[in-house]
């Protein structure tokens, strides 16, 4: 147990313990990304153009946001399968609010300003996360069962909210003062899509949370050895609840960005996105046993997955292959991680 604690500290402060293993592990995702970019730019002249790189990176934004939330959960030793459904539910909820909420008792239709819509959608994400967290931390439901349950509940709720249809009037009306929803997905700052800034800001915040705040230390120790952490006075249960809440909020941000990019909110958005998010986290070298992993690695993982997927599409490989390959990449990355960490293997 002691070596694991050392390792967790090493990750919390990378400058102190630059062990070779860790370097190699982070290097693997990085070299894979370089190789992917090199191979696809060789195969297709359209791959490494500035516009395609920006398009791909704004796609990274969606999966990167989900993966950051997923990393926090995985660091605590859990898993969150509900992120794709939460993304859809929050997108649809925002869309529903943008259409105007009819208050029948008052006989008025309430149009919220965009900032209030965003806050409500984030609150919805936090709520779904809180349900997951309470189920896992206090009711001791295994994480993958609890979040599989909320996966279906959130999807069902999203379908109910729209009756299976898609909201596509998200641009708002100047006379109602609720325009500007597309800003998140469409506008550019210095030629770079806003969504990329959103990802960068979230990643920076999460990085600081993990490396500079007590919460980060608590999280690494909870995932490393929950029992020892509890005995040392770490509020293990509330840490567990918070990681799911944060993951829900990340999914909500991703849902807002996605529906803003598409200018529509559909209840089937984000199906199987949880797979891609998990893939990004494990490619980034995080251990599914908890306690090991970094934001940098996870971001690299998200870039690897998206750039590879986009490259395959550009050279004309069927998108069905991507479904096959996401599954294979997850299993392969987990195997490589377990070899790298030299562990004796996993238990469910």
């Amino acid at each position: 147990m002691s070596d694991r604690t050392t390792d967790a500290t090493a990750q919390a402060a990378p400058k102190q313990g630059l062990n070779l293993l860790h370097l190699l592990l982070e290097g693997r995702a990085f070299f894979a990304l370089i190789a992917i970019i090199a191979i696809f730019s060789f195969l297709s002249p359209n791959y490494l153009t500035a516009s395609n790189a920006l398009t791909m990176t704004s796609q990274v934004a969606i999966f990167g946001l989900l993966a950051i939330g997923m990393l926090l959960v995985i660091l605590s030793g859990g898993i969150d399968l509900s992120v794709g459904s939460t993304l859809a539910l929050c997108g649809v909820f925002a869309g529903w609010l943008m259409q105007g909420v009819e208050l029948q008792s008052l006989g008025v239709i309430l149009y919220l300003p965009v900032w209030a819509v965003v806050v409500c959608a984030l609150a919805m994400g936090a709520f779904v996360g809180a349900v997951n967290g309470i189920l896992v931390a206090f009711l001791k439901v295994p994480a993958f069962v609890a979040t599989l349950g909320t996966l279906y509940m959130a999807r069902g709720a999203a379908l109910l909210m729209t009756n299976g249809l898609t909201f596509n009037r998200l641009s708002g009306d100047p006379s109602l003062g609720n325009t500007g929803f597309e800003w998140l997905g469409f506008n550019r700052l210095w030629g770079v899509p806003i969504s990329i800034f959103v990802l960068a800001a979230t990643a920076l915040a999460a990085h600081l949370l993990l490396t500079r705040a007590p919460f980060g230390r608590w999280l690494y120790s909870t995932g490393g050895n929950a029992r020892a952490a509890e005995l040392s006075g770490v509020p293990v249960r509330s840490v567990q609840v918070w990681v799911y809440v944060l993951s829900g909020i990340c999914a909500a941000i991703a849902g807002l960005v996605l529906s803003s990019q598409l200018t529509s909110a559909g209840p089937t958005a984000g199906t199987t996105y949880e797979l891609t998010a998990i893939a990004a986290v494990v490619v980034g070298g995080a251990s599914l046993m908890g306690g090991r992993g970094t934001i940098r690695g996870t971001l690299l993982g998200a870039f690897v997955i998206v750039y590879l997927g986009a490259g395959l599409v550009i050279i004309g490989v069927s998108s069905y292959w991507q479904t096959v390959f996401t599954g294979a990449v997850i299993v392969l990355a987990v195997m490589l991680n377990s070899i790298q960490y030299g562990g004796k293997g996993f238990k469910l």
Partner: protein
Amino acid sequence: MNTNADTQDFKARAADYGQRYGILIALVLVCAALALANEFFLTQRNIINVLRQASINGILAIGMTFVILTRGIDLSVGSVVALAGVVSASLATTSATAGVAGAPYAFYIALSLGILVGMVAGWVNGVLVAYFNVPSFVTTLGMLSAARGLTLLYTGGRPVPSLTDEYRYIGTGDLFGIPMPIVLFAAVFVVALVVLTSTRFGRHVYAAGGNPHAARVSGINVKRVRMAVYIISGALAGLAGMILAARTGSALPQAGIAYELDAIAAVVIGGTSLSGGVGRVTGTLIGALLISVVNNGLDLMGVESYYQQVIKGMLIVAAVMLDQARHKHA
């Protein structure tokens, strides 16, 4: 086995009996309530309908019981249902475009191939879980994605239509007036019951799930047992996929989405513990029937299918919470 293990075994068994009758009582109560609320519920046609609906999920849940007894989980069954369905259907179709060269083949060739596809998928899961120590939910989540992708690749996203009548017999035919899906479900149940309660392999499954270390020390090849349960689960998923295809007359690449949830729910409601080693296939049977009755009841009362999804999600979480509570007592 030492005396300590015996007492633990006794306690677990006592808790298990309570659960078993509890779930049976729940089933009877739900049936009684539905019979009172809706005069159509107790008609012969509806009862056959409930059993037929339970059969596919029941077959999957029986395979899942084996896996869960060894502390594993198989999230890939829904995708394997689709993969085995389309592969075997492509051998049994009279359509010139959707079939493989030389189709239609005899139904037994098509059926064997479907089972084989399921077993191969299960074997891959089993090898990764047992020999490479990849957590079962990650492995089977990967297989969920991979098998669905392969299904779409194999069919190009199009259904495989026009299956031969012999092939369709396993879905639409009957034996002594009982529909074939129910007959097959009953047969699978009886075999599973015998295997788990009266064979050496069955005892090994319980031992490997209850305490893998102790099982290994007592000379059980735990890795092989763990691999075998995924193969069983895959084979049964293949069978379920073919029954589904035969019933609808064409194999759909989108078949079986979210079926893993129903199967897990049936197993957990039936009293099998997710921590392994404790559970009965009889409980799984009752769990599958209960889910089917609840679905049927919601249908009869005209509840929207979207609500059913929400209710199902809650049902499984509630069942697992009960499981956890029971463990505290045991």
